[in-house]
């Protein structure tokens, strides 16, 4: 199957590809990071690298919420789920994420009741329908999903739903970008910025990337043409010697984001002093926890959460993949010990994870895997 023919407006894509090639300065190499896993998915699904000249390399970033959850948090969630009368809920993508002693699915096989939900609001219904149970929603995600968790909690509080709580694992996109910019040897020329996170936070919060690090960032939509267009906008900035935050995804993203969504997050959550990210280690002020005011809904306070730190498995190179330091196929276990059916690392679990995207769609990457395993 030729994925590249699937998206609308091939003509426009070719024209953009030509523009992009023309904007590259001779003998210069460009490395752009797409922060968001949704973009990684589109790039591999549609073979977008085929539209880019050799001079432009796309590097995958840390913006896959499932991928950045460390083993210790999975273990903590399972230890909550194992307690008496608990129903835990989470998004479907979480079910197969490996903890140090197995995944949610494994835990269910051993008797716990962890259910996947589409929305945190579905967990409220489960809580109402099961008054004798304690329902814990394992909240994950960047600023895109944090307002949903906050709204759900406010609703539970209004209803006085005493058997509902949240195990909060929300993370923030800017500290992750900062950690990557600060890691040695990371010579990036610009960022394709997250689309849906920006519907909430707006474009302003990326200003420091342009100002302090002199890197352009273009907030991008998720279709193939959006991404090509964003790459073109990045190259144009570099060509004109500009470093700015620009918005390619104006049809969904207002420059100022969604102030109401931010207000709801602020009402319910506050910064954690530090949070452990899969593969990236502890990053200060990079995640959210519930405010004292909502302690009655905070699973971390209600349950005995061990809070263990577990090192990533030795074979796993997810940290390198999340930082964009290696391509998925360069991980030693990619496609052999680590597959979507039997993931070792998180990047293989969610369809937004770089490894899963490569595994599912990498037309030429299987060949690269073979080449890499020969050396």
């Amino acid at each position, binding site marked *: 199957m030729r994925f590249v023919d*699937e*998206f*609308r407006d091939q003509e426009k894509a070719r024209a953009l590809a030509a523009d992009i090639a023309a904007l590259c300065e001779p003998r210069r190499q460009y490395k752009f990071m797409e922060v*968001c*896993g*949704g973009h990684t*998915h589109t790039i591999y*699904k549609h073979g977008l690298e085929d539209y880019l000249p050799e001079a432009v390399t796309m590097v995958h970033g840390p913006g*896959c*919420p*499932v991928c950045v959850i460390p083993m210790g948090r999975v273990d903590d969630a399972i230890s909550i789920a194992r307690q008496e009368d608990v129903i835990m809920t989470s*998004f*479907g*993508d979480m079910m197969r994420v490996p903890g140090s002693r197995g995944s949610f699915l494994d835990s269910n096989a051993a008797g716990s009741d962890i259910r*996947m*939900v*589409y*929305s*945190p*609001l*579905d967990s409220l*219904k489960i809580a109402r329908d099961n008054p004798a149970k304690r329902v814990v929603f394992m909240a994950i*995600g960047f600023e*895109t*999903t944090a*307002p*949903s968790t906050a*709204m759900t909690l406010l609703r539970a509080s209004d209803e006085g739903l005493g058997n509902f709580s949240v195990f909060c694992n929300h993370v923030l996109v800017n500290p992750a970008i900062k950690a990557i910019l600060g890691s040695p040897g990371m010579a990036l020329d610009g960022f394709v910025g997250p*689309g*849906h996170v920006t*519907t*909430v936070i707006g474009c302003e919060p990326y200003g420091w990337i342009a100002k302090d690090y002199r890197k352009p960032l273009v907030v991008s939509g*998720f*279709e193939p043409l959006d991404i090509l267009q964003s790459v073109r906008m990045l190259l144009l900035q570099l060509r004109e010697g500009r470093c700015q935050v620009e918005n390619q995804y104006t*049809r*969904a*993203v*207002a420059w100022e984001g*969604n102030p*109401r*969504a931010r207000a*709801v997050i602020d009402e319910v959550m506050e910064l954690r002093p530090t949070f452990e990210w899969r593969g990236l280690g502890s990053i200060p002020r990079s995640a959210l926890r519930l405010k004292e005011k909502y302690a009655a809904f905070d699973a971390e306070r209600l349950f005995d959460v061990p809070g263990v730190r577990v090192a990533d498995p030795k074979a796993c190179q997810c940290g390198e993949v999340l930082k964009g330091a290696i391509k998925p196929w360069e991980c030693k276990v990619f496609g052999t010990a680590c597959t979507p059916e039997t993931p070792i690392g998180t990047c293989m679990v*969610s*369809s*937004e994870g770089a490894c899963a995207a490569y595994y599912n769609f990498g037309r030429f990457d299987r060949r690269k895997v073979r080449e890499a395993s020969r050396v």
Partner: protein
Amino acid sequence: MCLGIPGEVVEVGAGRPDLAKVDVSGVRRVVNIGLIEEEGVRPGDWVLIHVGFALSKLDEEEARLTLSYLEQIGQAYEDELKALSRSEIE
């Protein structure tokens, strides 16, 4: 879960101003519109939906184009629709 999906508002909550029924590729479900309430959501409007919440309004033509794009990307969208169709927000 990170896939934002466009839906057309078909009904705005009777008695519950923060809920609306939307149509996403023929799947009709209730979602929460509390985060964009101030923008005044009416039947016929298009919204971008994330995990059961409308995050922003969309222009109709763009929404339809995005939808037709999503409809042919396959697995990821099918999974999202399947999850949505099981959702029971009230």
